[in-house]
């Protein structure tokens, strides 16, 4: 088997036993990237030379570390010192990060090599990776379709075996939704579990970094390294980090898994619904107790999200003005003109739409009606979940209402696009954790096979249960062995 097909767990064994060297791993990945990248376009940039130098500098002690010698693809929204940081935006063209994000420091400390800048929707705003100044990424299962977003590059590169594992960020589903559509595992940790220091903020109260991987165990290994308190992130939690691997194979016997009725009603693709129902039945067969639950405020999650997230974004993105860094128009008449035209040229239309929306809802006279109310709805959503978790240990839902749609299909209709995240958004609003993993294929698309993802939602800081349920499902099914058409 080619090295690039390896999982993180498998590759680590080979590296630890010196069956392969980190340089050989890079060579294999390079070969793969050269073969499939023209049709996938998962990366904005890959600095092979730096990666090779870092691989060569690894000591035997480094190779003994949890991620020793493993290249990790990084969504182009996290700062890696000396590497471009563009957020797939024209406004950051040419910007090179002067520092490492906290997660990058942690990856390095564990022996990993950051490799490549994965494509995304501009500033993580979107659900299809079509909102990228670098052009769209293509779904490896059907290159005429979108890979999901905003971490579409991270999901596609893992799915197409261009990367062993990747980091993404999730504000309203941006890890789980592309993971589902590309047929890989994606984990959004609890808000505060992973430091956001060095993650370019979209919506600060919702953003969270997490892994995209080929298996549940691989995600557990990455989470183990990147989780934990960081003094530089005031919102990071001082909660202890458990050992995510030790409980992984405990199975689901004795666990109560809730199924919310609100997630099986409107707009859901019948094939997707059937696949999810089968997956739930499968977990029941494995010994889990399935219980009906209700999350009554689910319907309001999307609307309140599209107030809170743009509001925060409108302030977060104000710093991109061309004054201190990034692209700037040369012929501004004065400072205001330079601001306006730099931002006019630098941002794409979805980003502008959200900045305007966010600016509006925070305006004097509208704040109470929009932002404050949305925050109240958020409290209700959080309460829904805490009541539900009184009855169950984790919740099962579809990750997305449909499989991957065609490139260009929803670009003219933002509302349709926003609905792609309808099942993932509430998890961010409540600040809890969610995992998506492959659970079957819809007989749709060019090759009649489009991945479908099962979402498992957990209590705050209870990623261990998500991983345990995911592992039980994954290891008792064969979906993880499927490879996309581009292979």
């Amino acid at each position: 088997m080619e090295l690039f097909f390896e999982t993180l767990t498998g590759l680590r064994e080979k590296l630890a036993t010196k069956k392969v060297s980190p340089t050989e791993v890079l060579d294999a990945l390079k070969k793969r990237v050269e073969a499939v990248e023209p049709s996938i376009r998962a990366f904005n940039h890959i600095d092979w030379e730096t990666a090779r130098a870092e691989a060569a500098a690894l000591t035997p002690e480094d190779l003994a570390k949890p991620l020793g010698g493993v290249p990790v693809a990084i969504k182009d929204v996290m700062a890696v010192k000396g590497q471009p940081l563009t957020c797939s935006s024209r406004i950051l063209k040419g910007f090179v990060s002067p520092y490492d994000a906290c997660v990058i420091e942690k990856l390095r400390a564990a022996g990993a090599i950051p490799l490549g800048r994965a494509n995304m929707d501009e500033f993580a705003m979107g659900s299809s990776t079509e909102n990228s100044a670098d052009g769209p990424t293509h779904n490896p299962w059907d290159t005429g379709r979108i890979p999901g977003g905003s971490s579409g590059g991270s999901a596609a590169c893992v799915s197409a075996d261009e990367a062993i594992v990747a980091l993404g960020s999730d504000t309203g589903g941006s890890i789980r939704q592309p993971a589902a559509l590309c047929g890989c595992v994606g984990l959004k940790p609890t808000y505060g579990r992973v430091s956001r220091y060095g993650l370019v903020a979209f919506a600060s109260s919702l953003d969270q970094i997490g892994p995209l991987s080929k298996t549940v165990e691989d995600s557990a290994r990455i989470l183990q390294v990147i989780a934990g308190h960081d003094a530089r992130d005031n919102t990071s939690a001082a909660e202890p980090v458990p050992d995510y691997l030790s409980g992984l194979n405990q199975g689901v016997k004795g666990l109560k898994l809730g199924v919310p009725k609100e997630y099986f009603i409107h707009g859901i693709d019948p094939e997707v619904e059937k696949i999810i129902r089968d997956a739930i039945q499968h977990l029941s067969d494995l010994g889990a107790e399935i219980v009906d639950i209700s999350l009554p405020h689910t319907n309001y999650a999307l609307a309140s999200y599209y107030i809170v997230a743009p509001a925060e974004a409108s302030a977060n993105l104000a710093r991109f003005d061309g004054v201190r860094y990034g692209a700037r128009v040369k012929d501004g008449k004065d400072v205001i003109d330079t601001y306006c035209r730099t931002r006019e040229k630098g941002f794409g239309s979805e980003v502008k739409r959200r900045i305007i929306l966010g600016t509006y809802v925070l305006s004097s006279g509208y704040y109470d009606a929009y932002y404050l109310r949305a925050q109240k709805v958020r409290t209700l959503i959080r309460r829904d979940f805490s009541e539900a978790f009184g009855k169950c240990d984790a919740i099962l839902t579809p990750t997305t209402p449909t499989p991957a749609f065609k490139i260009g299909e929803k670009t003219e209709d933002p509302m349709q696009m926003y609905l792609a995240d309808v099942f993932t958004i509430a998890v961010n609003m409540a600040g809890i954790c969610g995992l998506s993993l492959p659970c079957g294929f819809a007989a749709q698309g060019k090759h009649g096979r489009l991945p479908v993802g099962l979402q498992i939602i957990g209590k705050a800081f209870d990623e261990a249960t998500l991983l345990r349920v995911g592992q039980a499902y994954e290891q008792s099914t064969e979906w993880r062995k499927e490879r996309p058409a581009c292979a």
Partner: protein
Amino acid sequence: MEYEAVIGLEVHVQVKTHSKMFCGCKNEFGAPPNTHTCPVCLGMPGVLPTPNLEAVKKTVLTGLMLGCEINRICKFDRKSYFYPDMPKNYQISQYDQPLCLDGGVVLGKYAFPKDAQKDPIASAKKNVRLIRIHLEEDVAKSFHFETTSGIDFNRAGTPLMEIVTQADIASPEEAFAFLSTLQQTLSQARISDADMEKGQLRCDCNISVRPKGQLEFGTKCEIKNMNSISGVRRAVAYEITRQIQTISNGGKISQETRRWDDAAGQTYLMRTKEQAHDYRYFPDPDLMPMRTDLGLVESMKQQMPETPSMREERYMRDYALNDYDASVLSSDIDLSHYFEGVLNAAQGDRQKVAKAIANFIINDLLGLLGGADQTLADCKIMPEHFGGLVSCVDAGKISSKQAKEVFVEMFATGKEPSTIIQEKGMVQISDEGALESFAKQAIEANPKSVDDYRAGKMAALNALKGQAIKLSKGKANPQLIGEVLEKLLNA
């Protein structure tokens, strides 16, 4: 028609801390441009703020000293507007849950400008109420060159306290007194150097006028850009006159922001209300709300230093000093420490000794320092020596006239008082026998004064006392010689 002014102040104070408000960069004035910067205070993509606890503590301390209520839960908010000196194009500030609420500043008589201290209002101990004190980050400094502009980000992100008053101030002199009291309080507690010329204390004034007796406020204007406390006094005075004249001439005041030009002695229009910003405040999602009731306020209460006005009161209460002496000795923390050091070293009745020390400091020392262009730090007189000198006078070993001479010598040389007294042969005569002989001589030589005294003219006793001291070449203990004279005259 008679008009009255209604004035409220917004005072920005740079908080003296080791590092900036939300990053680890040094908080230092005067370093070469852009040498105290990092990704955080430059607003690079992906960075996050970490609150500076030292700045929070100093703000709480300020609140406690000014009698504020400390908010149990407070939070930071984002205030959005675009300006090149603001790296993130929003400022982290506090909107509806600031650290401190209410409180006030009492205007002491000697905080008023010298020429206004006789005004009855200066003695009224007026309390200017505060609305709030909040903590925020300062912006960078812009420099405008011929064709370009430059920005120095050293100041960007340094902690800044904003103190907002009620519209309780009624005159330029009260504004002056408020700011000088605030300045003293903050600099003595080492919260800020509060030097207006260095921009460490900046003040915006909201001013309106209305016919005397009217309850409704007039339209207010905001005045910016004053860089000294006396500049504030001039600007407020100018603006009040301008507004009254405008109204008297049938004009209307429009709500606007005006800039003070100290050289021209005038305010100029900066922007009208229509151009005012919508700052779109909302809670900063990067910063968790802060609890102050989990030990922070308690520990700050224990560390709370005495304010100048508290000290002034203590001096008046414990040492029976008059308000002027107490206010001068309290106005400067080093001077207060010096005064108390001398007092500790001096022996004798506390109140008497304290008054003697206060007289020496205010009447002699401050003048000597001024004349020599020195500060207290340069002063050669050790508090122990100073105390020793005062004890000598109290014990009647030398006269106060002699003591003044010794004091000048101590100031010049730093010598101990006993050495100088010996060198000058200044020993006060307190021996009753010796004093009696001077007294008798004085009585014999001045029969007219003796007659006057016996006729009931008490001033005659002083004349006789003066004569006797003169006969002793100034060495007779003035109090004792008076007693001896009386005894002889009444015998």
